[in-house]
């Protein structure tokens, strides 16, 4: 009864959004506690690798979660889900930036010659870097003003998330030494998410024709 439209909006803004925000921030907090050596949290024997890998993994996880929003909203008819898409996407970008910063500052100690060599000569780094370059304009144009100003072009621009997520999963697959099971699960999930979009596009095109 108290779930009148106005109150649902309020509930969403006051409770669900902060909750999603807190959930998205949890991996970061956990890593920060580990980095500061708080009792019960640890980054293990190789903290730099742990930070680098965790942030990369959460960037990818959130990228895929972001890609789940549209299919879920359409299939369930629960359009309220769209309200969380931007936050999820921005968190994916946040973790990607952390990942990049950790690589530059902690892993490579800002040794530019080594970094440039890495980006140009190690294909998996080239892939990751290209993916980050694609995500950057998406984050920059995520404001309400930008959405309004760009109009139709905004939708076109934000399709960059598809190639970006393909490059990221490829980046993951390529840096694994031998046991590719985990990246293969990610590739399968991404194939499903992109496959659904292709399928829907084709069926809609057919119904219009």
């Amino acid at each position, binding site marked *: 009864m108290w779930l009148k439209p106005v109150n649902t909006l309020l509930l969403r803004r006051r409770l669900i959004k902060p909750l999603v925000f807190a959930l998205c921030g949890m991996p970061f907090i956990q890593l920060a506690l580990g980095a500061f050596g708080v009792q019960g949290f640890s980054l*293990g024997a190789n903290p730099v690798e742990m930070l680098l890998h965790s942030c990369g993994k959460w960037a990818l996880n959130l990228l895929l979660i972001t890609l789940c929003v549209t299919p879920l909203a359409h299939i369930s008819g629960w359009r309220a889900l769209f309200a969380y898409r931007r936050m999820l996407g921005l968190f994916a970008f946040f973790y990607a930036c952390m990942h990049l910063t950790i690589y530059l500052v902690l892993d*490579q100690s800002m040794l530019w010659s*080594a970094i440039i060599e890495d980006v140009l000569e*190690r294909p*998996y780094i080239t892939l990751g870097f290209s993916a980050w370059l694609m995500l950057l304009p998406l984050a920059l144009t995520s404001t309400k003003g930008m959405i309004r100003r760009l109009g139709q072009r905004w939708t076109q621009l934000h399709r960059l998330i598809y190639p970006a997520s393909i490059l990221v999963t490829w980046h993951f697959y*390529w840096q694994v030494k*031998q*046991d590719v099971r985990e990246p293969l699960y990610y590739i399968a999930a991404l194939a499903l998410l992109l496959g659904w979009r292709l399928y829907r596009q084709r069926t809609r095109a057919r119904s219009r024709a």
Partner: protein
Amino acid sequence: MLIKKTPDILSSEITDSRLYFGRRRFMREAATLALAASLPTRLLADKPTWLNNISPSDFSTSEQPNSYSDITTYNNYYEFGTGKDQPQHQARNFNPWPWQLKISGEAEKTGTYNLEDILAGRAMEERIYRLRCVEAWSMVIPWVGFPLGELLKEFLPTSRAKFVEFVTLNDPSRMPGQKTRVLQWPYREGLRIDEAMHPLTILATGLYGEELPNQNGAPLRLVIPWKYGFKSIKAITEIRFRETAPNNSWRQSQPGEYGFYANVNPEVDHPRWSQARERRIGAGIFAPKQETLMFNGYADQVASLYAGMDLKRNF
């Protein structure tokens, strides 16, 4: 209602002092037991005799060794999981004893031996070595062991013994990682006979003066400090003298990325990453990577083994 009041006399004044001190001793022993329960069971029973007399070695580095915790929680040992934090858990219930070692191939004495018989009475040394992983990280590890060459000579290798092959235990019921074919089991490694006979090459049975933990390759592993870590095969069940070069597991799985020699070499990159620098485990979060040294810093002792060889081709 009874209110419990803290007594203002010490319990030792009421209780018979013999009982009191007995209780204190009991508590101390209980604490020791609780600590011991977290150690490998065989350690509790009896430290193997061959670890009672360990002498230092001139081959040891003066660098600060990594902590016991670093060495035993960050392991590449796919027989117990492909994550580096997995072997410490998945190898917990592995009981290596009794262990048999088979000696086969081009030698006058071959057969299957009880490892305990091979080790009993053998002089052990502490060898503090750098370990450089092909993944570009490194540690300093105080192994306890003895020169491989010393053991090999006891079996009287023939003139046809040009190579030595090593095989890890193959038993998926005890090594759960072997249920997945991430590598072709059993794990195999190989050395040229002169590499095997080199005084730096050791068989390790201990770590930090104690028995080798399961996740580090108990009960017997190879340590070749100038080669990438994957050459230092763990849980060895067979040593075979061969006339022809054996294949090794990583090379078998990806011949373009891992070679037979696998000498640490900062000038020859892995196809996917640089080998010029390495992250020293335990150096701290802000410590930069350090330069990787030719033959992992053992060039003075081993470079002559490869004189005239093209190390780019023989990676």
